[in-house]
């Protein structure tokens, strides 16, 4: 805004504050809830100030989980989720950057067909193809394994597409200069294309990490062994208990813990992430 009117300032601030409250209040309440004992919630009043049971609650979910609802210790689930998200990030980015490289820089037979096949898979996210995918994964004996958790999610076209778009903006002369300079296809990829894609890779990593982290439906299907439970499905498990009221304080502690890694990733990658979204270094 070029204008500088005081009432406009006040208005914009009000809007912003309102926005922050809408986003932050539930998070705050979840945190508050996680610091109280198990009985506070049964009275139907939501406390607004922190209670005395912070360490106790977190310690319990982290190390013991919730035995009544069959949730393993959170530490284990956090590790599973992290591993799953990381495998998805690394797998997706490596596969898609290589396939984008092939599609943009090489002239091979059926190249257009390959491109369209990849393009079409954009229309088939996991949720759409979940039953056949489950069948395949089950037949391959990959239920209850990290491979089963991640491989079906790695195969997707979005990232290939983004890299393709980026590669198309890299001037051809750069590749030609590299050819004259004696760089073969692999050297060109490693020395020039990869460093140029750095910001794009960072931005995608953040997006894909969160994508992997929040997976719910797929882990729910392919894992029956608590050893492989992920945090998001774990929370759901904790919240649905058969014969008694859920221990909301513990559920909320798990929720808060589940939020930390994505937040950490976003903050750590923030600078590169924003750069990758708004500018391409050329």
């Amino acid at each position, binding site marked *: 805004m070029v204008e500088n009117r005081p009432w406009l300032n006040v208005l914009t601030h009000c809007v912003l504050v309102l926005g922050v409250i809408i986003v932050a209040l539930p998070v705050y309440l979840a945190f508050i809830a996680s610091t109280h004992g198990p009985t506070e919630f049964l009275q139907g009043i939501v406390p607004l100030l922190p209670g005395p049971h912070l360490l106790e609650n977190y310690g319990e979910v982290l190390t013991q989980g919730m035995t009544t609802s069959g949730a393993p210790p959170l530490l284990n689930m956090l590790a599973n989720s992290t591993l799953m998200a990381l495998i998805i990030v690394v797998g997706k980015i490596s596969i898609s950057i290589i396939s984008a490289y092939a599609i943009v820089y090489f002239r091979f037979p059926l190249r257009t067909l390959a491109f369209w096949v990849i393009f079409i898979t954009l229309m088939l996210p996991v949720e759409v193809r979940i039953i056949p995918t489950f069948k395949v994964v089950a037949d391959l004996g990959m239920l209850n394994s990290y491979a089963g958790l991640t491989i079906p999610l790695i195969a997707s076209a979005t990232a290939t597409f983004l890299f393709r778009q980026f590669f198309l903006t890299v*001037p051809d*002369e*750069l590749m*030609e*200069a*590299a*050819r*004259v*300079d*004696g*760089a*073969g296809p692999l*050297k060109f990829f490693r*020395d*020039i294309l990869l*460093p*140029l894609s*750095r910001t794009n890779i960072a931005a995608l990593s953040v997006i894909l990490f969160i994508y992997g982290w929040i997976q719910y439906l797929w882990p729910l299907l392919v894992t029956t062994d608590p050893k492989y439970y992920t945090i998001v499905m774990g929370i759901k498990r904790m919240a649905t208990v058969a014969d008694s009221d859920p221990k909301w304080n513990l559920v909320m502690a798990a929720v808060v813990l589940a939020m930390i890694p994505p937040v950490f990733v976003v903050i750590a990658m923030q600078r590169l992430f924003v750069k990758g979204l708004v500018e391409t*270094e*050329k």
Partner: protein
Amino acid sequence: MATIDLVDVRKTYPGGAEVIHGLDLAIADGELLVLVGPSGCGKSTLLRMIAGLETVTGGTIAIGERPVNKVEPADRDIAMVFQNYALYPHMSVRGNLEYGLKNRNTPRDVIDARVAEAAEMLEITPFLDRKPRQLSGGQRQRVAMGRALVRQPKAFLFDEPLSNLDAKLRGQMRIEIKRLQRALKTTSVYVTHDQMEAMTLADRLVVMNSGRIEQVGTPIELYERPATVFVAGFIGSPPMNFIELGAFPSDVQSSLSRQATGADLVGVRPETIVFESPDSDAIRLECQIELIEPVGAESHVHVRWNEQRLVVECRGHPGFSEGQTQAFYLNPSALHFFDQASGQASRAAS
């Protein structure tokens, strides 16, 4: 150091028509050869074929007597300077200069020595640790030159390397390229569409037109004895005036056709037209002055003679005014004669 020989070279782009139609050219060792021609005539295509960036669809290209049709660009021992410089954006200037040498497993001390030498020569030493985006256009151009220099290749290939610079810088860099080429004596092929650049740089000049060579020769040869109407009109600024022989009075016609039999088109360089009455058998044209363009040391006077528009280049600022009638004189010995049908010069008779 090497010769470059093109024999019956042809190029057809996949799914396109032929754009280079059987072209023969021998480039001598240490020569600076300039390719000029209008946009789309195939200059870049030809250069890129020499570089190995385009496949050759017919004929042979040999660098230093070795046929290179199937040789990768990197193994042809050539260096290329691109119009948009194509510097690696994420590498420092030093990194850009070193990259080609590193890929060839050059020893570290040789790399350092060559980079230092090239940087010194091009006066880019202070920028060695900067990224290309932190440089001005002219400095980037120097880095691009440096990247070619450090390799000490058999041949330099330039594709309009100065066309992204402003006029003044272009002039400076032109001189610098010529000086460097003289010092290094490396065979060079230089593509440009700027005829000023072409004339001043070239040892020999090749004028191309739609995939064919019109004429090869020193710039002065091409200027003084253009072999075709195309070359005559392309070389020289302002361009040559063309007058159909039939437009002259019949006595002039008959005396002119004695000079060149069969010619039906007369070419007159603007700078050979004078307005003071010369002594001899000059041809007098009674012209109407339409427009005067002063360009410093000379003026370009646009005139109309009968239905014909002509440009006259006069030294200084003649005191003409637009709209006035003025007599101009053509020197018959400074005329060029062409055959319109074939486009060739006719200079048999003399």
